[in-house]
C-alpha cells in the first residue's frame, strides 16, 4: 500500500513541482501588468507591488508551498534581482 500511496502523492503533486519560482535574472517586465502575468505563470500569484530601495517588491504566494514570497524587480530592466521568503 505504501509504495502505491507514494506514487499517488507524487502524481498529485507533479504539476506543482513543475512550477518553479522566478529566479534572479529572469525578466518579468517593467509594468505591473506584465510582472503580474509573468510571476503568475511562474507559479506565484501576486498580491501587491511596493517600492523598496529603488526596487519593486512584489508580494506573491507560491502555489507549490502556499508561502508568501517577496520578489524584487529592477523597475528599469524588469529583471528579478532577488527572491526571498516573507517570514
Amino acid at each position: 500500500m505504501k509504495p502505491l500511496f507514494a506514487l499517488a502523492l507524487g502524481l498529485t503533486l507533479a504539476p506543482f513541482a513543475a512550477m518553479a519560482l522566478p529566479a534572479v535574472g529572469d525578466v518579468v517586465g517593467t509594468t505591473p501588468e506584465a510582472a503580474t502575468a509573468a510571476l503568475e505563470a511562474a507559479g506565484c500569484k501576486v498580491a501587491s507591488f511596493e517600492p523598496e530601495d529603488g526596487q519593486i517588491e512584489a508580494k506573491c504566494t507560491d502555489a507549490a508551498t502556499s508561502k508568501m514570497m517577496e520578489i524584487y524587480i529592477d523597475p528599469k530592466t524588469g529583471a528579478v534581482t532577488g527572491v526571498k521568503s516573507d517570514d
Partner: protein
Amino acid sequence: MTESGSGLSAGLSPKGQATATLPRWDPLLRLTHWGVAGVVLGNYALTKEGSSVHIALGWIGLGLLALRLIWGFVGPAEARFASFSPNPMAALRHLASLARGQAPHYPSHNPAGAMMAYALWACLAVLTVTGILMTGASPMKQAELEAAVAAGDWSAVVEEGGDGEENESPGGEALEEVHEVAANLILLLALLHVAGVAVESRVMRRNLVAPMLVPRRRRR
C-alpha cells in the same frame, strides 16, 4: 557612588517603609516614555519594514529620545541623569532586596530601573540610527513612491534609483542585521522592564505604573 547614584536626598526612605513617596514623573518625561513605547510597538507589530509610516515612526522615536536625553540635563531633579547614574552593582543589590521583599523607594528610577532605562535608550539609538542609514528616502518621498506604485506607475522608482541589487552591499546587509538585532533586543528589554515593574509593584505593594500614567495631584 551611592546605592541610588542619587543627587536627590528628599524622598529616599529606609528599606521597606510603606509610606515612602513614589517618583513624580513630569509631563514631558511621561510623553517621551509612552511615545517611545508606542513607536517601538507600532513599528514592531503594525507597520511594514521600510514603509513610509515605519520610517516616520523611527524619526519620531529618535526625536523623543533626543528630547529625553536633553531633559536628562535640564529637566526636573527626578528626570536628570544625576539622579540615576548607571550602577550595575546597585542594580543587583536592588534586585536582591526586592527578592527579600525589602526594596527601598527612590524618588527617581531605582538602580535596576536606571540600568534598564540606559539599556533601552542605547538600543533605541542603535535602532533609529541604523534605520535612518538604511533608508534611501524620507518618509514623505517614500509615501509618494508608495502611492505611485500602488497606482501602477513604476517610473517614479526608476527615477528615484537605488543600488540596483536587493541588499547586495555588505554595508547594507550589516546595517540590516544590526537593526534587526537591536529591534529584538529592545522588545526583550521592554518585556523585562514591564515584568520588573509588575514584580516590584506586587511584592512591595506600590503602584509604579500610576506615576507614569497620571500627574501626582490627580492620583489618590
